[in-house]
């Protein structure tokens, strides 16, 4: 972490708003400003517009029993620093909305309204989000008074979709049960002929109450829960969770563990990117390419199994390090499989790129407008495809990623120029994934010279209550953020998860606007969004 960066931003904000800030404190790469509720929009606006920071997440927690009322934390990400604006909500249980200045805040505010019952005044959209219309009013799951096992009754009510009216406008409702082997969600298309006039997504069908559930579990068990936030992002999510706990207990994990985390993180990226590229190929009506890529995916999953005992890499991480060792025998297996697969991967990609019908289908499909992407705060491949240069592996180096970021000034310049050229269509996303897979092969090879030390360090038996920290990692979809606040007796007081999909889902409504209905599956696949990771 760059100390001067943190101090510069801290000083800038303190100078500007010294009268409004009641308390400031630092925690590793986090800087917290406590302010009054009414001053919050001004400060958030300044951080967003003048510092050009990205709204990373909004975290609410219920401290009523501990004499604090509801506390909301607005988390901004600027380079390698996380800026927290912390406010307490008063007796009237409402807080000013910042959705009109910072559009990406809208969804977080709706989430807080559903789960805590706090009203975002000024948010134009206050329809239910997480809890569907059948959930009775006045019951809020994340309040401390709500018991996990409560089963409230159902109420009859209908969700109001946006209505597009006019001659020749039709609606197509799709889902929640889809035609393929995928997760549930509802899409409401308004169409004129084949052209999509409007798309509204309705998600949270797979809401499983993960954040509430974590509050009743032991720290070690929450690790297994974090792996199952989204089955295909298990390493990224568990790494982020472990890092949050490690940051709270201030432990440094052994170098060997760091490298093993890196290797598994990249293996996860490769097998998922291979799957996504196969999906793109299927949806562009080229099943041959998909079949070949699926063979590679299967081989990678078998490699996963030989290394970790699970085909989708469950059980790799442990708080304080890793559970799963990589022996010399495994190293040979990895090297052999990786070289075979990277060979075959090149051949398939060469084949795909030589098919003009395939390339034409991708070019210009599902184009994302850059301004909207900025406003919605997208992350990962979806951000990089339009030239928004964010990558948690580089911005907040974790595991052993700092060892792999060695670009010459010339390469950095080239990277910048290339970023500017990116157009944000499905083809760009296809190419970025191909490049990332090739980079991952390199990172795995470089990481294989493991240090000869322990797999994990033990963390303190008792963690101080109400200490909190933010852990982040880059999954194949983008940044995943896990904020943990420790409760009494080593329990979890609040576990807030924001995966890449939560940021990226809303962009799909914009991405399809210039396309026709049959393009939708292709656009959806090229964005590669997780339902489960979004719904929690």
């Amino acid at each position, binding site marked *: 972490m760059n100390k001067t960066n943190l101090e510069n931003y801290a000083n800038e904000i303190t100078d500007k708003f010294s009268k409004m800030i009641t308390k400031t404190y630092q925690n590793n790469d986090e800087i917290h400003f406590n302010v009054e509720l009414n001053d919050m929009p001004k400060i958030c606006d300044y951080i967003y517009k003048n510092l050009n920071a990205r709204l990373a997440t909004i975290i609410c927690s219920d401290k009523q029993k501990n004499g604090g009322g509801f506390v909301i934390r607005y988390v901004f990400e600027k380079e390698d620093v996380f800026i927290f604006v912390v406010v307490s909500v008063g007796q009237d249980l409402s807080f000013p909305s910042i959705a009109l200045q910072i559009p990406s805040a809208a969804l977080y505010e709706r989430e807080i309204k559903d789960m805590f019952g706090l009203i975002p005044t000024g948010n134009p959209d206050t329809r239910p989000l997480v809890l569907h219309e*059948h959930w009775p009013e006045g019951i809020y*799951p994340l309040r401390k008074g709500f018991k*996990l*096992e*409560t089963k*409230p009754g159902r109420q009859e009510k209908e969700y109001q979709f946006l209505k597009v009216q006019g001659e020749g406008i039709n609606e197509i409702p799709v889902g*929640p*049960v889809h*035609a*393929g*082997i*995928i*997760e*549930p969600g509802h899409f409401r298309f308004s169409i004129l002929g084949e052209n999509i006039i409007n798309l509204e997504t309705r998600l*949270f*069908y*797979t*809401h*499983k*109450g993960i954040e*509430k*559930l974590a509050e009743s579990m*032991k720290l*070690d068990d929450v690790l*297994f829960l974090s792996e*199952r*936030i*989204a*089955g*295909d992002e298990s390493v990224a999510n568990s790494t982020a969770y472990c890092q949050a706990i490690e940051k709270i207990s201030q432990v440094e994990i052994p170098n060997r563990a760091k490298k093993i985390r890196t290797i598994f993180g990249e293996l996860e990226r490769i097998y998922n990117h291979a*799957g996504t590229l196969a999906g793109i190929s299927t949806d562009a009506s080229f099943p041959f390419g998909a*079949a*070949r890529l*699926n*063979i*590679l*995916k*299967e*081989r990678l*999953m*078998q490699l996963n*199994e*030989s*290394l*970790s*005992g699970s*085909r*989708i890499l*469950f*059980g790799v991480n442990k708080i304080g390090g890793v*559970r799963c060792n990589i022996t010399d025998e495994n190293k040979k297996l990895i090297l052999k499989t990786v070289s*075979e697969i990277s060979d*075959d991967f090149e*051949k*398939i990609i060469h084949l795909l790129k030589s098919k003009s019908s395939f390339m034409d289908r991708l070019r210009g499909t599902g184009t994302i407008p850059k301004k909207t992407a900025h406003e919605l705060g997208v992350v990962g491949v979806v951000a990089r495809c339009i030239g928004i240069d964010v990558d948690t592996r580089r911005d907040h180096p974790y595991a052993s990623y700092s060892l792999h970021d060695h670009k010459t000034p010339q390469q950095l310049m080239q990277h910048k120029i290339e970023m500017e050229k990116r157009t944000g269509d499905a083809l760009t996303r296809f190419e970025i994934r191909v490049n990332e897979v090739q980079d991952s092969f390199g990172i795995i090879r470089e990481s294989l010279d493991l240090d000869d030390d322990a797999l994990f360090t033990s963390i303190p038996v008792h963690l101080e209550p109400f200490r909190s920290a933010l852990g982040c990692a880059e999954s194949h979809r983008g940044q995943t953020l896990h904020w943990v606040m420790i409760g009494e007796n080593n329990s979890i007081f609040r576990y807030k998860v924001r995966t890449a999909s939560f940021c990226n889902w809303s962009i799909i409504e914009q991405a399809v606007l210039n396309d026709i209905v049959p393009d939708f599956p292709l656009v959806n696949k090229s964005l590669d969004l*997780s*339902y*489960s*990771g979004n*719904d929690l």
Partner: protein
Amino acid sequence: MIKASRKGIVGNGVETIKDLSNSLESKNYRGSVVFKVDPTDDQKKILENICPTKALFSIKENNAMGLDNGKCIMCGYCNEVASKVIEIKSKPAMPTKARNQLIDFSSPQLSTEKPYEQIGNELNKKIQKMFGRSLAIRQVDAGSCNGCEIEIAALNNPIYDIERFGIHFVASPRHADVLLVTGPASRNMEIALRRTYEATPNPKIVIAVGACACSGGIFGDTYATTGGIDKVVPVDVYIPGCPPRPQVLVQGLLLAVDRMIKNGI
């Protein structure tokens, strides 16, 4: 591990598994939890306490310990803590027709289990007889983490190629004989799942796939979940695992077809 055809990935080689004796698991695979010896009372307490999904439980009547495969998420934590009592085998736990059959006891008994290809061929013959060549499956995600979907989708890849056994996935429940349901049946999916079930023509078979679908798994029974598919619709076959590997999934399908034959449709 399969042998990759090194002739070239874009050539015409056959990738589909055909070796009858090859069951594909690597020796490291966490397939099932098995008791080595009867645990002592102290060990029972420890095991009960550490199991994140409460799959290990002691039985008061005969002083034994039970393992509910329908709850087990194969984290392997019990083996780490009590390696003298608990062993992790690479052979996966097998599907059953009733929920209580998923429970193993500390008196050890391992299920006999066949390779993927052999199960598939048996299944193929039965499907030929029963359904005139094809069995249509509709997959429904009722709140899964997407892990089970990855494995179900893998059935369609060229390596497992389930279509050669006459099984295919269809786009609508109205075309389906079998519903393959994953996830702990989230509250928000409850109505959709029930309506999908109603839309499926009779005779129909419902298969609960994965620990979540069998019992709620790690997500349990909370405000947001119902704690298992059988709380919402009747289930005919339970497939344990987190997630179950493709070979166990076909074994579950075989069991489902068997059940249809027995019920005489």
